[in-house]
């Protein structure tokens, strides 16, 4: 099993979710994140005092998949999250030792 983690632009979430559903992925976890890579933050001014906001708001999307699906699911995310402009984010894949569904106790691929 693999864990695919994608950092994406917040407003791309709907597109990515729809694409994953169309591919047949039935669940995912999304959390708010902030950070920067090549895209840097912006500045804000309050009563003349300027602040630089270094971290840009992003979403972290996590999907557990079977080994054989990993590459194509990453592709689905790539295509749906891509705008071609700076700050589109990153996708990475890691191996996962075990997965357990809490309600039933199922393990492994059954639990995905």
């Amino acid at each position, binding site marked *: 099993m693999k864990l695919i983690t994608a950092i994406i632009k917040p407003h791309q979430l709907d597109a990515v979710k729809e694409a994953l559903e169309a591919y047949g992925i039935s669940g995912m976890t999304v959390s708010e994140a902030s950070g920067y890579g090549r895209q840097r933050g912006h500045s*804000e*001014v*309050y*009563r*003349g*005092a*300027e*602040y630089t906001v270094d971290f840009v708001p992003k979403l972290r999307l996590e999907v557990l998949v079977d080994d054989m699906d990993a590459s194509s699911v990453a592709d689905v995310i790539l295509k749906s999250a891509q705008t071609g402009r700076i700050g589109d984010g990153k996708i990475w894949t890691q191996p996962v030792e075990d997965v357990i569904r809490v309600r039933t106790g199922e393990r492994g691929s059954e639990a995905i």
Partner: protein
Amino acid sequence: MLADSFPMSPTLLPVAAEPAIDASATAFVLLCASLVLLMTPGLALFYGGMTRAKSVLNMMMMSFGAMGVVGVIYVLWGYSMSFGGSNIGGIIGNPFENFGLKGVVGDATGATLDANGTAIIDVFGADVWIPEVLFVGFQLTFAIITVALISGAIADRAKFSTWLLFSGFWVTLAYFPIAHMVWGGGLLSGSEDGLSAKIFGATDGVANVLPIDFAGGTVVHINAGVAGLVLALIVGKRLGFGKTAMRPHNVPLVMLGAGLLWFGWFGFNAGSELAADGLSSLVWVNTTVATCAAILGWLVVEKVRDGHATSVGAASGVVAGLVAITPACGALSPVGSIILGLVAGGLAALAVGLKFRFGYDDSLDVVGVHLVAGLWGTVGAGLLATSGGLFYGDGIKQLVVQIVIALASLIFSAIVTALIGLALKATVGWRITDDDEVAGIDQSEHAESGYDLVARGGRLGVTSTGPQTDARHADELAEEGVKA
């Protein structure tokens, strides 16, 4: 009718034949007093939104705390020191003469009574009588907001108990004397013993040049603005001032607060006429257009200097305009008010940067907004007053008098605030500990947090440990065999 003609004591007024309560004026002032009281919760929102999230409650509590302390004190000795008691040296009224509103309610021996035995006053000698206790209520709200204004200078770091002590001492030793001096027939009023009469002479017991402070440019804004500056210096900077980000955590709250302040300010300015008449109507319009112009003045400075017109700038422009028009609102034309407001917004927008240049942490710009716009409004009235103003060809006498009352109240307030602030610093102390300040003053001073938003279900890892469980409910659960 100018506010400077508040008599030394209402009971000394010439009594009209069978004076009776003016119902329209009474209804109007009742409403205005309620509007002015609303300004303080409005200020709490305005200030609260500008602090960081970890200190929003303390910021708002400084306003609500001032309401508690000052409201009680005003009835006990505040009114007597400001308006009631006999004049002591032109600086203060006798605090014991009307202590606890003695002589105003109940056995009002010596006061003017209407047919029902209610003590009534005609503050401006215009034969418009309102219950004296209503005048007390109206003035009480002014004292509260003035103290609350100062709190913006010491956000995030002051012990709540010290702030409450300060509120009581300051309103007694700084606010009541200046209110008495300007409105109660003291040194800064148009009485024959006042500074204006000493400079330019008096005729028939009234100064030839009447000082203009309709609703409190000196008493409220210069007074609170200077006090903010002095306290900011005494209390010291927040940890990380000028280094870490201290941006407003909730700008919509700031704008909501500015809107409430504006609404309440109609009671403040128009209400200061104490009658529903032509002048209070003119004051309403002057207050509005000056504020509108000040929004534009502030935004233009921001656009040119910073590149953007900001929401916090618009909200701040509202307050700067309201502050500036406060002393002048009864003496200007609407067009004059626009000019006064436009300059006020621009000046204050430039002035808020001074704290970084000079290194004092006036956290929410009490100096930049209230002191600067208050000084400009008071002095600007000497330029723009339709009667007596320099720009209307009436010479510089009015301007000189305006500068004198502005400086006199500034110096008096600075000295008194410094004495109180330093005394508190040496005894009970001003600052919370550094650790508490970093963690957020809301937790250390109030044991609360302003927001509880994690995943909308509340903060993680919070367990009930206090006596808030409903005992009856727990029993019922036990009967049903449910482990509570």
